[in-house]
């Protein structure tokens, strides 16, 4: 099972958000599982068409994903998937 971790910035909106194990074999499937636990959270990560929001990144084992539209980057059984925000603004 992959382990999904989140930026602390999302905890403002989802206070119970914590490291979560997921069975899904693709990133969209993993996000669907996360959504079931934290309703609404995928709307923060993905846009209306299911693409990764412009200022959000996903890392798999420390490497940024390449496919931001269909989220097709592969990962392994024991991978760590980290969802983070870009640091910008003021």
């Amino acid at each position, binding site marked *: 099972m992959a382990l999904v971790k989140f930026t602390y*910035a*999302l905890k403002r*909106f989802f206070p119970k958000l914590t490291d979560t194990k997921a069975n899904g074999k693709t990133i969209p499937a993993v996000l669907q599982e996360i959504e079931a636990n934290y309703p*609404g959270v995928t*709307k*923060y*990560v993905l*846009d*209306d*068409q*299911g*693409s990764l*929001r412009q*200022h*959000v990144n996903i890392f798999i084992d420390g490497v940024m994903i390449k496919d931001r539209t269909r989220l097709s980057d592969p990962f392994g059984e024991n991978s760590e998937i980290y969802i983070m*925000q*870009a640091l*910008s*603004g003021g």
Partner: protein
Amino acid sequence: MRSTLLLGTRKGLIAYRFQNGKWTMESCSFEGIPVSIAYADPRNGTWWACQDHGHWGVKLQRSKDRGKSWEEVAAPAYPEGEEVKDGLPATTRYLWSMAHGGKNYISRLWIGTDPGGLFVSEDEGNSFQLVESLWKHPTRKEGWFGGGRDLPGIHSIVVDPRNEDHIHIGISCAGVFETTDAGKSWAIRNKGMSADFLPDPTVETGFDPHIVVAAPSNPDYLWQQNHCGIFRSIDAGKNWLDVSEPNGPARFGFAIAVAGDNPDQAWVAPADSDVNRTAIQSALVICRTDDGGKTWKQLRNGLPQESCFDIVYRHALVNDSNAVVFGTTTGNLFFSPDRGESWQVINNYLPMIYSVQFAD
């Protein structure tokens, strides 16, 4: 004058209350989060916050207890597969206007968005649907474009209180559109307007109304602060007349407010040309017409007259009986108790102000 002011700002939704002869901050909700529009529905007192998180997208929140508690509801979203242009997927980038549907449609709400979609809710905002007729309008993909923002956006929704199926909307950049059947069909209402920034100024769409408002005492009287001047219509938008000052400051700007009791009286907040977009000669001035735009009076008493860079965004100038209030890009909030003849500072230290509304 109603005793509450709701502000949408770059750092949250801020409420002010008028008590004992002065405005006092009542609350700040969503501190640190940009609120593009703060909206109070006068039918039921519900407060709405249109949020622009930047990282996490746009969100919609409502409160039924004056901001003490908030509930997130699903923000307007574009159906799967919709495109702004061929190859550019449509996703809600900004909530730019909000209006209630009127007394006969008690559950109806409208929201205008960037990239150009109008959304309607028939269930008090629990869900919003894209108004397909406008989204599929034959002029949209080729004839609308960004102005102020990168993509087209709907910043004005004017519901006629005499017939709540009759609505005007303002789009930057496309112009004014009118429906008489609650959004099933649309007519373009840009006759008489100019678009001197275009290679062909005689086009059907491509105009840049910065804001469109109706006179509450006669909704056939529409006013718009346009990129190319100030325009007025006395026939519900069928014809527009340029009422800008040829040689005065009342010309370029973003905001306009019409007096609740007089369709010929309006205020604008002029800015120094579309090139600079700063206060006119480093001084803040509001202009008022009392004669339908034939003449404009400059109102400066109490406003900074040197070293000033403030301008006023399109939703940030409002009137209620004798009161006029505006908020600026540098976080100054001003109040006039006498239709602009004199001004008082409410606060000099607010965040950038996007919207101002009077509420109960």
